[in-house]
């Protein structure tokens, strides 16, 4: 079984020229937490996720562990200040530039292995030889496919 046989082809994307606030609005509307970022030709430039936006909200000196207990700081005030800055940024400065890519003829086993090893992304982007986005494939899609296979095998028996 190949990735192209299981992937979802109707994909909501973000454009490289979008701002973070545009993408957040689209994420809220579609209830998606991760969008592929493509250019005019549909070539993948990266992915934008709620996680990568959050990474930009939290100052690096807190992430590094130098200040892990800060009950005295006005947390919502500081987060709000960063939020207002981040939503005005271009997507290019916030997105992840190394998404998980698989080719259309990749086997489901290796796609599943890649998703497990990569860890932090909900789905892999399926691309053609020119890195043009043709679909996405998630762990849920693979599990659904397996479930359908088992069901139909049982029905046949």
């Amino acid at each position, binding site marked *: 079984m190949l990735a192209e046989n299981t992937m979802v082809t109707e994909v909501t994307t973000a454009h490289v020229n979008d701002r973070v606030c545009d993408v957040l609005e689209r994420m809220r509307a579609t209830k998606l937490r991760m969008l592929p970022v493509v250019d005019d030709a549909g070539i993948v430039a990266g992915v934008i996720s709620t996680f990568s936006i959050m990474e930009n909200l939290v100052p690096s000196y807190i992430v590094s562990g130098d200040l892990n207990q800060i009950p005295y*700081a*006005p947390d919502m005030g500081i987060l709000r200040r960063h939020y207002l800055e981040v939503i005005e940024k271009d997507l290019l400065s916030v997105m992840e530039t190394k998404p998980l890519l698989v080719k259309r003829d990749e086997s489901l086993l290796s796609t599943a292995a890649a998703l497990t090893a990569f860890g932090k992304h909900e789905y892999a982007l399926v691309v053609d030889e020119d890195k043009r986005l043709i679909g996405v494939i998630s762990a849920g899609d693979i599990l659904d496919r397996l479930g359908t296979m088992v069901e139909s095998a049982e029905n046949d028996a």
Partner: protein
Amino acid sequence: MHNTEHVVSSSVIFGFDPVWIAVSILLLIYGVIMAEKFNRAVLALLGAGLMILCGVLNQQQAVSGIDFNTIGLLTGMMVIVAISQKTGMFQYVAIKAAKMVKGEPWGILVMLSLVTAVFSALLDNVTTVLLIAPVTLLITDALGVRPYPYLFALILASNIGGTATLIGDPPNIMIGSAAHLNFTDFLINLAPIIPVIFIVVITVIWFMFGRDLKATDEKKQLIMQFDENAAIKDVPLLKKSLFVLVAVITGFTVAHTFHLEPATIAMFGAAVLLLLQSWGQPLHDKDHAYEGIMAEVEWTTIFFFVGLFIIVTGVEHTGIIAMLGEKTLTMTGGDLAATAAAVLWVSAIASALIDNIPFVATMIPLIQSMAPTFGGEEALIPLWWALALGACLGGNGSLIGASANLIVAGFAQRAGHPIAFLTFMKHAFLLMLLTIAIAHVYLYLRYLS
């Protein structure tokens, strides 16, 4: 360190003159320490071992060369600081200071520098910057200003503040112990010039960065929303720590009256605070707490000192340091003012470029060897102040000049605002020279004119 007998040994070790063996070990170990490729404590202990194995010193001479007053004072203060820092008092004071100036960016820079200088004088500058620098990053982030001017000021303030007292900086502990100068001596002789140096440095920093530090009212308001009371993690421990800290500092000021060494005061204070901090806890918890605190003592630094004392004793034993002392006196014409100036400026430049602890360890016997020329140990006093001012303030000359500098640079790096070595030196070296010039004038007017 207290060995005043300088005799060039006539014995031959492995066919070599012991002078060459001792100097070779010293230069080799100092060279590798400067290269920063190996742990400095391991290197110092290796050098100390070589001094004994090569026959420069015997076991007894090596042990008697270790200055246990310095070791005891350092260890005692490390224990007290390790317990005190758990209370959150450093963060409390830093936030309180920032709110006192209503969140004004320049006022915050001055207040955080002042807090750092005072804590560095009364505790130690490494712990101070370790706890103040992260809060500084948080405050500058809330203000939306560049953290570099604040971190730059913090580094300078920590080394300036540390110069003021016997316990502020390791070189002062070493000098105080070797020259029998007590806490009050340092307070009377060094502390008066420190506020002058601090004010001059802060004024220069204002001209360098101050005018660009601006924040909106909304961001200043964010500073006022910090809750300093939430920084205090353990009120009973805070009270115990403050009690012991005040008692220890009072003890330092009166110790000489009772013929007590500062190390005795510090170690006793550490033992009392260890006892108090776990008072009423089950035995198992107490043991666990003691082990935790002991693990926080910087044993690497302590063993570095032990090894260093033995290496310097070995070199001193061969008489080479006395010879260098005589050469220095020949160059300065045996004039006290010229010698003090040489000690001050050479110490400052050297401390900016190399670790000031081994430098001071070597300078101490060299200055001691000059006593007969100047008419006894009492006459050396200006030279000790010159060494203390040069070695401590010199640490501001570069990013590698003092441990506190490197710690702040590490925070800046992790926060995504790295401090470039040359950028820092461009700003700091001239400022350091200015502080040394002020110290020179002070020494001249007070002791040498």
